[in-house]
């Protein structure tokens, strides 16, 4: 099966998934955003926390390319550092959700019975609840440091990943090659790690791309509400929340972070769709797959 998926992906590569403009465009946008987040200290012209007195809400100038905010800080630098906060929280939260969700999903599917029932019922319970309310409530109690945000979002996103992995793993559990592996004496660990795990990668990759988008939405949303990483940390959400109070005098501190959030989220959505078309052979043959490719 692993070989099967590989060769099918390979065939898709022959047909040119990179000629699918969406993958290239959205992928490059994400790469640029990641590079900006990682290299922010090198790229930023000014310290994002440094206040330039007498330069409050100025337009673009030679000193401040994108102007200054309501305290006289460089908008460009804060924008670059803002990428850091959002992407950091989203990335590590999704790592937690992916590791946890994949583990729980595969274990449930492999062991079945009571283990399956307890784990998956618990996951379904969390999935039934309104996510944003749950995130806000938990953050209210545990506090809003970056680490806490990562854990809260990561743990609350785990059930979503677990569901997706579980569905795939359940079919793999029934395949003949798993039965064959067991017949020649492969233990639980070997079957789960060598046979089931590699075959769940395609749906997990698609899900990672989509949940990165959701995690960024959640982090920027929390920051917008004033519940994100505490000030003076530069976050896109907080920049938007603060920027709207002075939009009458200077719109750049509001418009630019709005553009940044929108671009990254759109890119992740498109990337997820494009990845699904390339990686999921079942959808590619179907009507929806075809339409998505054409659209």
């Amino acid at each position: 099966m692993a070989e099967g998926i590989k060769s099918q992906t390979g065939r898709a590569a022959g047909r040119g998934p990179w000629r699918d403009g969406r993958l290239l465009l959205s992928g490059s946008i994400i790469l640029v955003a990641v590079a900006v987040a990682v290299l922010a200290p090198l790229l930023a012209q000014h310290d994002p926390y440094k206040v330039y007195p007498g330069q409050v809400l100025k337009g673009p100038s030679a000193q401040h390319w994108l102007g200054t905010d309501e305290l006289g800080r460089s908008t460009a630098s804060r924008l670059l550092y803002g990428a850091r906060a959002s992407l950091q929280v989203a990335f590590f939260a999704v790592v937690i959700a992916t590791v946890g969700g994949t583990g729980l999903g595969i274990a449930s599917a492999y062991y079945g019975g009571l283990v399956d029932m307890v784990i998956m019922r618990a996951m379904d319970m969390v999935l039934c609840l309104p996510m944003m309310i749950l995130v806000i409530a938990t953050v209210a109690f545990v506090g809003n440091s970056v680490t806490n945000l990562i854990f809260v979002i990561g743990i609350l996103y785990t059930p979503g990943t677990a569901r997706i992995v579980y569905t795939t793993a359940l079919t793999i559990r029934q395949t003949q090659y798993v039965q064959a592996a067991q017949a020649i004496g492969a233990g639980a660990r070997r079957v789960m790690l060598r046979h089931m795990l590699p075959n769940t990668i395609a749906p997990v990759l698609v899900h990672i791309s989509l949940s990165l988008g959701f995690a960024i939405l959640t982090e920027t949303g929390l920051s917008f509400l004033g519940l994100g990483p505490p000030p003076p940390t530069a976050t896109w959400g907080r920049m938007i929340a603060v920027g709207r109070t002075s939009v009458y005098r200077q719109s750049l501190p509001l418009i630019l972070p709005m553009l940044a959030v929108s671009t990254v989220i759109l890119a992740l959505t498109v990337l997820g769709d494009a990845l699904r078309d390339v990686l999921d052979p079942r959808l590619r043959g179907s009507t929806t797959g075809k339409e998505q490719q054409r659209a």
Partner: protein
Amino acid sequence: MSGYVVKRVLVALALVWFIMTLVFFLVHSLPGDAILAMGGDRPETMSEEQRAAMRHELGLDRPLYVQYAGWLVHAAYGDFGTSVSSKRPVLRDVLVCVPRTLELALGALLCGLPLGIVAGICTALRRNSRTDVLVNGAFVVVGSLPVYISGLVLLLVFGLYLGWVPTGGFVAIDESLNAHLRLLILPSLTLGLWLGAVAARMTRHAMLEVLSQDYIRTAFSKGLASSAVYYRHALKNALIPVVTATGLQMGSLLGGAVLTETVYTWPGLGLAFVAAVLRRDYPVIQGVVVITVTGFVFTNLAVDLLVGWLDPRISRD
């Protein structure tokens, strides 16, 4: 059928119990002073004896399981204590906000569903045409943007630059119905556009699926007019998954309402919730979470039962 309903109600009650338990343990994970502050006084100004007296008064010196049982019983009767900031019972403060959020949700449904369903039908019937690609693309953009960004864009364009509608605030419905509804337009549109994007995608998908069925070909081949096939035969069946999907979006709609209410300072549940979190008003946080989740769980249940009744083919496992 009745057995199925009973089972679903039990699952819903289990969810409500789960969230009550979660809230209880979150509250008890707080440092001691924060719990004392829930009584409304400032613990840092109290002497050790006063703190002990206060702990006793709030029942914090009782065993944890007694406190837990007490919390469940009180919460079941709607008693969430007193708001630290307003000094009024939490239930009263929260219930004032509920109708405002329901209005917003209803407004969003009224804007979003017709828009989404019409757009979904048009794009499905003109599949892969330029209209389809454009409308679909527009909805992908609108549907994936966070509501606080689309909300701000609408606010800047229609409120600030064009000045057609007020940019935020609140007028009670019995004060001036007209002003009240005018304030509701942009928030409803913000949430409605997002909901419409979901509905459009679902309708398009469901219509295409139904149109490929044998009975549609039969309907065409017996000479029915295409409008009769599309609207009488196809649409009826295509709308069921749309209703389900929209019902399932209620959780995201609630999350969206929190952000939308903050953008437009619409004093519903969401704004009250965020204010309570920012003020660390824990009794209100507890109350909002339990009341919201209970309402949400039972709405979902109602949607599910409604869909099962509309479409008996949907299996009841």
